[in-house]
């Protein structure tokens, strides 16, 4: 009950599912209770450093932090190996809690080195605790969950920052001595909350995964070198590292500009502390609103790629403004405040969220190593690098033409910032693309198409011919010889087949063909004194059959044979049908094939159909098409028509398009076009998509899918496919609504039928998507949605989210997303309304 109320309250701000409310609140509070003390500490840090040492010494602070961070990373990774995550985090919180107490005492001593140490320590505090927080978030959530909740959870940081900032602002002038104890108290509450997180984790059913992750993290020896190598070896991680660096270099330069301008305008340590306190609070308030209300919608609407660009774009515009103001000889306090506020708020809301999402598809082992390197070491190294750049610039600026002290520095630094932002934007484009590729790589194909597997592993024609050969042994030596010859003709008389069809020695008659393949100790093979050259045999038979005299000699025989419809003459007619297939298609005797195709005996028909396939005469096509209606001959006729290939694509298209024709025949025409598999065949099938009834739609879509699988170069009309996706989605939605509307309960059979229709429609949607997007990706997405684990389903959706264009996403996602049934039905209803598709499968409203 309480959980339901909690979820209901949270759902106003966040897309939250049952079971997620507790962990969402815990993580929100965890982030809150590590950020609020930090913002108190940060205000104190800035104020004590600027008042004690001045802004010109800031590069030193950045530099020292960067240097020391390498040692911290190493130490932290050693601890990570030895301790489970829960213990490491709690240990770290307790450690920093005790540090605050020490600094509280030190702050009263007035020693000059304290501000430097405090500055460095404050940065370490932030980096270590925030990195550990994000490690935990990565452990708990998959990409889909993270995307939904990152806005809410991240807003804990903003609220914490606001509170910390306000407290610093208010208390700095009246009771500055209270600030550090307050920070310690908040951190203490953080320890309690984080214990709750780990208790929740232990209660979850997939605790095996988190134990495995902990085990992986613990057992992975991560030194600094290892973390660096892991990052270096992955182009994706190098991009992440690159983006982190440029972001922080820009941030450092902007930070210096801001501090420089503020220290010029605000005097006195307590005033500075107060200013920074209020400023941080204000910036974080804006960040909080942004995080809570805008981050998730922006990520959802623009996806990761779009969301990555917003932050640098805003900084670009702001920096441009500062540069222009400096050019005009102004000390641009307001622009500086605005750009710093933007930098701060976006860094800790949208940018942080998107950056954490970029980590999620990485393997846990890589993540642990690379986060240590990037978030801990590189974070500060980049600031150090920014400091070096700053120091160099500050040294150079007085020498630059037209420089005017502080304004000159600001002007030139703005230019440098603009250039670095351009690099940043380029890297963001690259990583956006790589993110989609990485998500793809998390999905495995679960199984291959059955018909493809059969086709790849089995030569069906060959198998049938071997069976025919073995069967004909008992019926007719002539037929047997012909089948053997057919195997030879197709270069399929393999040693295995010879063994299979061998005669025993005592069954051999000298004049029989079997003697040619007499079984020996070593298996079948021709006798050496009468060696059978297969090539010569093929040539001889062909030449003989093309002789005019042969055609004359055989003509009477064939006419007599065809005229004899008795059962005893059936074998003779089979032989005749088979033999005709060996002739040239222009030979006069081939004309007899038409009679044999109409023969009353299915066996005779079968051989005649095979010969028609070999001869490929267009005149035989209509008869073959009619044979499709016969259950006994359908498969043979289908095989035969397939062998005609592209020549009959137009004919098949005519059958497909003929609405007066039998539906089964039209479906077969679609299947034949699929086996033809040319661009022309694909075009014919695509043309029929828009007008196809439901009965035919499945077959046409399957045919297109098979063509696409066989030849990725084939192109399909995008607009038609999109319309068909909408159509099939409507069918799906209609079936779903009917199945679950509850108005009139369906019987068991009807329910099962509807379930099957739903399943078929879903598969059809993905087959269609595979025609306009990379097919392999769509197949993986479909299979993992159907049979995958919870995580692989999430990656499937994430992949679709990143690949599909907006209009298609809006149509398809209500159908594929993992929503509660009621919500899915609701979304289907509104989708049906928006598509204007109120009709059911039979065309009824």
């Amino acid at each position: 009950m309480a959980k339901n109320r909690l979820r209901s309250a949270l759902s106003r701000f966040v897309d939250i599912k049952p079971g997620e409310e507790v962990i969402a609140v815990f993580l929100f509070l965890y982030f809150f209770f590590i950020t609020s003390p930090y913002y108190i500490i940060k205000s104190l840090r800035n104020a004590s450093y600027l008042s004690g040492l001045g802004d010109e010494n800031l590069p030193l602070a950045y530099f020292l932090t960067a240097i020391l961070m390498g040692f911290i990373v190493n130490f932290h990774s050693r601890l990570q190996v030895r301790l489970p995550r829960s213990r490491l985090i709690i240990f770290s919180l307790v450690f920093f809690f005790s540090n605050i107490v020490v600094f509280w005492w030190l702050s009263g001593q007035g020693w000059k080195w304290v501000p430097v140490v405090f500055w460095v320590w404050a940065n370490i505090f932030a980096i270590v605790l925030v990195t550990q927080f994000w490690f935990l978030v990565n452990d708990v959530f998959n990409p889909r969950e993270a995307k939904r909740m990152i806005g809410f959870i991240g807003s804990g940081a903003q609220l914490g920052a606001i509170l910390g900032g306000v407290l610093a602002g208010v208390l700095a002038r009246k009771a500055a001595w209270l600030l550090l104890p307050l920070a310690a108290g908040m951190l203490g509450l953080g320890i309690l909350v984080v214990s709750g997180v780990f208790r929740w984790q232990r209660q979850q059913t997939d605790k095996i995964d988190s134990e495995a992750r902990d085990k992986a993290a613990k057992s992975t020896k991560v030194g600094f070198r290892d973390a660096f190598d892991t990052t270096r070896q992955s182009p994706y991680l190098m991009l992440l590292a690159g983006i982190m660096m440029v972001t922080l270099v820009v941030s450092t330069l902007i930070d210096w500009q801001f501090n420089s301008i503020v220290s010029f305008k605000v005097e006195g340590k307590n005033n500075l502390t107060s200013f920074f306190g209020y400023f941080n609070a204000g910036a974080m308030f804006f960040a909080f609103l942004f995080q809570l209300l805008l981050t998730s919608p922006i990520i959802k609407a623009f996806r990761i790629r779009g969301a990555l660009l917003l932050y640098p774009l805003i900084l670009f515009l702001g920096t441009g403004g500062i540069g222009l103001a400096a050019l005009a000889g102004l000390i641009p306090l307001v622009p500086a405040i605005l750009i710093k506020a933007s930098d701060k708020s976006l860094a800790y809301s949208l940018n942080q969220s998107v950056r954490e999402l970029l980590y999620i598809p990485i393997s846990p082992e890589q993540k642990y190593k690379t986060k240590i390197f990037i978030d801990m070491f590189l974070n500060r190294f980049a600031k150090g690098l920014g400091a070096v750049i700053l120091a160099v610039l500050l040294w150079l600026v007085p020498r630059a033409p037209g420089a005017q002290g502080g304004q000159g520095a600001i002007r030139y630094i703005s230019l440098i910032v603009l250039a670095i932002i351009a690099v940043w934007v380029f890297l963001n484009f690259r990583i956006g693309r790589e993110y989609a590729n990485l998500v793809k790589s998390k999905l495995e194909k679960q199984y291959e198409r059955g018909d493809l597997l059969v086709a790849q592993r089995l030569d069906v024609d060959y198998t049938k011919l071997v069976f025919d050969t073995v069967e004909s042994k008992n019926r007719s030596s002539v037929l047997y010889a012909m089948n053997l010859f057919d195997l030879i003709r197709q270069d399929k008389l393999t040693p295995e087949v010879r063994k299979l069809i061998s005669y025993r020695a005592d069954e051999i008659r000298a004049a029989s063909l079997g003697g040619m393949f007499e079984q020996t100790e070593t298996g079948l093979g021709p006798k050496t004194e009468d060696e059978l050259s297969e090539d010569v045999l093929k040539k001889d038979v062909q030449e003989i059959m093309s002789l005019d005299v042969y055609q004359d000699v055989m003509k009477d025989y064939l006419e007599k044979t065809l005229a004899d419809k008795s059962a005893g003459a059936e074998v003779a007619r089979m032989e005749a049908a088979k033999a005709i297939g060996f002739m040239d298609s222009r030979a006069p005797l081939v004309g007899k094939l038409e009679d044999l195709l109409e023969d009353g005996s299915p066996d005779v028909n079968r051989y005649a159909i095979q010969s028609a396939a070999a001869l490929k005469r267009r005149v035989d096509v209509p008869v073959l098409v009619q044979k499709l209606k016969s259950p006994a001959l359908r498969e043979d006729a289908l095989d035969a028509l397939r062998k005609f290939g592209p020549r009959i694509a137009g004919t098949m298209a005519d059958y497909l398009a003929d609405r007066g024709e039998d539906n089964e025949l039209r479906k077969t025409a679609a299947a034949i076009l699929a086996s033809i598999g040319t661009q022309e065949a694909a075009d014919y099938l695509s043309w029929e998509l828009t007008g196809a009834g439901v009965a035919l739609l499945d077959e046409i879509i399957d045919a297109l899918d098979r063509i696409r699988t066989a030849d990725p170069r084939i192109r399909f009309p995008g607009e038609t496919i999109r319309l068909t996706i909408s159509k099939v989605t409507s069918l799906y939605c209609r079936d779903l609504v009917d199945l679950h509307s509850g108005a009139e309960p369906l019987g068991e059979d009807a329910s099962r039928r509807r379930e099957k229709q739903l399943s078929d429609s879903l598969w059809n949607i993905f087959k269609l998507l595979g025609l306009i997007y990379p097919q392999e990706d769509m197949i993986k997405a479909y299979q993992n949605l159907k049979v995958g684990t919870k995580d692989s389903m999430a990656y499937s959706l994430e992949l679709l989210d990143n690949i599909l264009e907006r209009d298609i996403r809006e149509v398809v996602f209500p159908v594929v997303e993992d929503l509660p049934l009621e919500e899915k039905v609701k979304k289907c209803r509104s989708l049906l309304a928006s598509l204007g598709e109120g009709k059911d499968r039979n065309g009824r409203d």
Partner: protein
Amino acid sequence: MRIVARHKNDIVIFDLEGEIKRSDITDVTLHQLVKEQLDGGKRKILLNFDAVEFIDSFGVGEILASYISTHNLGGKLKLVKISKKLFLIFQVTMLTKVLDIYEEEETALKSFF
């Protein structure tokens, strides 16, 4: 190729020797020899392939032409002791349906009656 004719009763037996192939056409072909016999009133022809090493489609054409000529005059033309390879070809091309083929000369000769 060498062709030697002998007679047994009123049956003409052609003993073929060597290779019957296109590139080896002699002055007188098998068909011509058969026709000569037919012109001489013979109506029973037996072709003996015991010593034939090779036969190509030209050779088969000769056989068939001889068969037609004999058949058209109401006669009978039969084959004896053809190779297994040739028999295979005759089977595949259905010529075994038309041509009478025997393994032994005695059996072949008896079959004319």
